[in-house]
């Protein structure tokens, strides 16, 4: 059934491409080859580095390391217009059309500014391009009147009008109905039949299996797997999904050993959550009837695909987000109505995943960042006045104790690496009477050494008898240290699995919506 094809030379080759942002390695030595006549699926969760990769291909960002070769020649893609002139067209996740203009006007945008747009010429070309693809485009319609799917078709045609050889579709199905997604799949098929290369970015496994000729899986900035067309054709859909699940959530060679800390003798429930409900806000899902218990010295993992309410759960527990009903109970004490500061003082600590965005103030010194959550409290402040010597002394103590590598405690924390910022956050949250600690994606964006060190730190915390709630999208991480793993999906806990033999598979199935 599958024609053995002469492998055409790839149009774009990425060799060891690396991109760093402050505190985070977004792409770590990624290799990729994009060939004509292939739908190349880039699969990965939020934060896996897909968008950064697309940003570099479309000229929005420049790589910090590695090379990008186009037709075998190394080229720096300087800007989006440069990318277009190289034949790389991108349809971004969020619509880039001007809603108040007509389709024709939108398509004519970007032409020479001293000429009137040649609408007649344009309509001939659009018809040439659109008809063989089975796309109907009404050039005189106003964009705001079109459905999202139709708008996307306009964007695709716009990219083709510029003679694109490579078409990048970033999360193109996220706004579409299932039927719209299927239509887009068929359109991609026709595009590659006409000799284009299509790069299709998604975090949905099913789409990867249905539409792709080749699948590359990204995870935490690294490419962790690649399924070539021959293999993809040979596998059935179910076997394919299984293989992708293994790639996305499975164990890596460089992962650390499984080591579950022993439970303390006194393992009563320390943190309990009962029927917690949080209303949905804009794009964040609502939380529905969340209940769980975490004992002393226990690590409860929260697994799930990113964006299923993990952040809301952490914020609701910490008091940053108000719950519409339900209660949080720590060591027998109900937290109803307590604010962030009150919950922290009672011993509930929350380590955010957004280290620079909300965890720290990047321009402030390391010393102040240790104490952001206890400003004004003695002994570091006395009747509201800062005691610089005490603050710096305590900061130096914590820096030593938690092995933070910093030039000094007066250094702005934004200059530190992600691993060291994370150590500052851990030091802050563990200080003075922590009883239960919520970790949200604690190793996100860290290099391997810091990842392993952070995991060991979490095990030690549990070993000291604290209750740990570990939210992570990295199943391997959860399997390596949790006692139990609860799975969250669309704001609900859909199941809880005891860690042990076969737990990984059961959690993985729960994550993608199958019964355990």
């Amino acid at each position: 059934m599958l024609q053995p094809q002469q492998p055409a030379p790839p149009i774009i080759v990425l060799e060891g491409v690396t991109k760093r942002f402050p505190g985070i390695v977004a792409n770590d030595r990624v290799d990729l080859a994009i060939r004509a006549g292939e739908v190349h699926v880039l699969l990965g969760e939020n934060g896996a580095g897909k968008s950064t990769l697309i940003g570099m291909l479309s000229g929005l960002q420049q790589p910090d390391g590695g090379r990008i070769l186009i037709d075998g020649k190394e080229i720096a893609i300087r800007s989006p217009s440069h990318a277009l002139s190289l034949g790389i067209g991108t349809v971004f996740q969020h619509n880039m059309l001007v809603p108040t203009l007509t389709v024709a006007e939108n398509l004519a945008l970007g032409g020479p500014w001293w000429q009137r747009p040649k609408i007649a010429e344009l309509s001939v070309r659009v018809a040439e391009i659109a008809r063989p693809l089975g796309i109907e485009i009404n050039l005189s319609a106003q964009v705001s009147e079109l459905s999202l799917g139709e708008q996307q078709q306009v964007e695709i045609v716009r990219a083709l009008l510029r003679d694109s050889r490579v078409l990048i579709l970033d999360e193109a199905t996220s706004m579409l109905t299932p039927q719209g997604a299927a239509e887009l799949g068929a359109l991609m098929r026709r595009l590659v039949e006409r000799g284009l290369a299509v790069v299709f970015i998604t975090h949905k496994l099913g789409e990867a299996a249905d539409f792709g000729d080749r699948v590359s899986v990204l995870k935490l900035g690294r490419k962790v797997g690649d399924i070539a067309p021959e293999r993809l054709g040979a596998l059935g859909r179910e076997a394919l999904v299984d293989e992708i699940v293994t790639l996305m959530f499975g164990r890596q060679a460089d992962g650390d050993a499984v080591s579950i800390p022993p439970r303390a003798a006194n393992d009563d429930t320390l943190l309990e959550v009962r029927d917690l409900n949080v209303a949905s806000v804009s794009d964040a899902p609502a939380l529905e009837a969340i209940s769980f218990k975490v004992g002393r010295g226990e690590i409860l993992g929260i697994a799930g695909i990113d964006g299923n309410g993990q952040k809301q759960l952490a914020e609701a527990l910490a008091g940053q987000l108000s719950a519409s009903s339900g209660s949080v109970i720590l060591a027998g004490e109900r937290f109803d109505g307590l604010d962030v500061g009150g919950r922290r003082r009672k011993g509930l600590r929350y380590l955010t995943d957004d280290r620079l965005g909300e965890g720290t103030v990047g321009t402030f010194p390391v010393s102040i960042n240790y104490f952001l959550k206890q400003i004004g409290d003695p002994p570091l402040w006395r009747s509201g006045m800062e005691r610089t010597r005490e603050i710096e002394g305590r900061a130096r103590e914590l820096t030593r104790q938690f092995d933070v590598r910093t030039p000094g405690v007066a250094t702005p924390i934004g200059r530190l690496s992600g691993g060291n910022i994370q150590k500052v956050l851990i030091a802050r949250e563990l200080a003075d009477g922590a009883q239960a600690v919520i970790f949200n994606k604690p190793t996100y964006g860290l290099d391997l050494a810091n990842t392993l060190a952070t995991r060991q730190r979490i095990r030690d915390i549990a070993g000291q008898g604290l209750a740990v709630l570990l939210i992570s999208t990295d199943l391997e991480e959860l399997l390596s240290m949790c006692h139990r793993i609860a799975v969250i999906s669309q704001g609900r806990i859909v199941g809880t699995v005891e860690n042990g033999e076969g737990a990984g598979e059961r959690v993985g199935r729960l994550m993608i919506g199958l019964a355990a």
Partner: protein
Amino acid sequence: MTDNTSPATSRAVDVVAAEPVGREIGRRLLITLGPILISLVLAGGVLVAVGVDPLAYYGLVVERGLLSPLGLQQTLTRMAPLLFIAAGLIVAFRAGMWNLGGDGQFLLGAVSAAASAPFLVQALPGWLALFAAFLIATAVAMVWSLVPALLRAYQGVNEIITTLMMSFLGVSLANVLVKLVFLDPGTTVPQTRTLAVADRLPRLFETTITSGLVFGLVAIVVVHLMMTRTAFGLRLRIVGANPRAAVHAGLDVPLLTVAVFAISAGLVGMGGAIDIIGIQGNVRADWNPAYGLAVIPVVFLARMNGFAAIGFVFLLSVLSIGGESAARRLGVPQHFTLVLISIVLITLAIAEYLDNRLNQARRA
């Protein structure tokens, strides 16, 4: 044979070589003073273009604003309200809130003080009357800031727009109050009752300098210490530097927002009060010195540092007092002072940008 011993792993992964301190200070001076000189040349070019000898203009400004004893006393007196305004802006800007409504707050404070002080001195001992007028002015300015404060705190409405709009309203309202409500029936000119010179704030020693200068200096130093040394100031700076971190750390951001506006507007209102009970004695209709807008660039030049702001406020006073004299003598419009300050600010910003680019290029 391969050598397996790897070099000792460096512990100091993040250590950035610290620049020598002396060179750093030299660089700072260069990128501050250089642009000021360039600005003087550029502004001189403007003066030449309108047919005025720039050297004569600058000479007159320095002579009248700084060197002549009377001019210097006027300059120091002018500083009093400006220091209060600078203090108010520092609080707001450091907390990341752009209170551009200074003129409205200033005039409402001034009118409140002008309306209440002449009556209060009849009933209360002198110092208590002035203090009460001062407090009334502060309170009125604070209340005036509530609308933008509440909109920003609870609805996220951009305060740049609301404070500017409220400022237009405030300036007009102050005018209306002077013309209709607090009109002095004893004169034909529309103005408030005049506070007798004897009842105003005492002058310093044997000079014409108002003691309001001392209050202004105290205010700006206190504000500087509050922002840098206290827990409250730190909270405000966190809200300014990273509002999401403030929420994460459990700070009550809406409440702090309202507090920032109240303190900022209150200080600006105090500036208005000081100008009336210390210097002017009354408010004439259509009087609007527009100090609020003039002080904004000064606060930026000082990088929101209170002590630096004292220096720059002094400079602004020299320029404006000297500029007023030069305006009369050479026919250069009084607003040329603002032109000069704006040129300085823009060249400073360009210098800063170039310095950053240079630094990046050096590191790369």
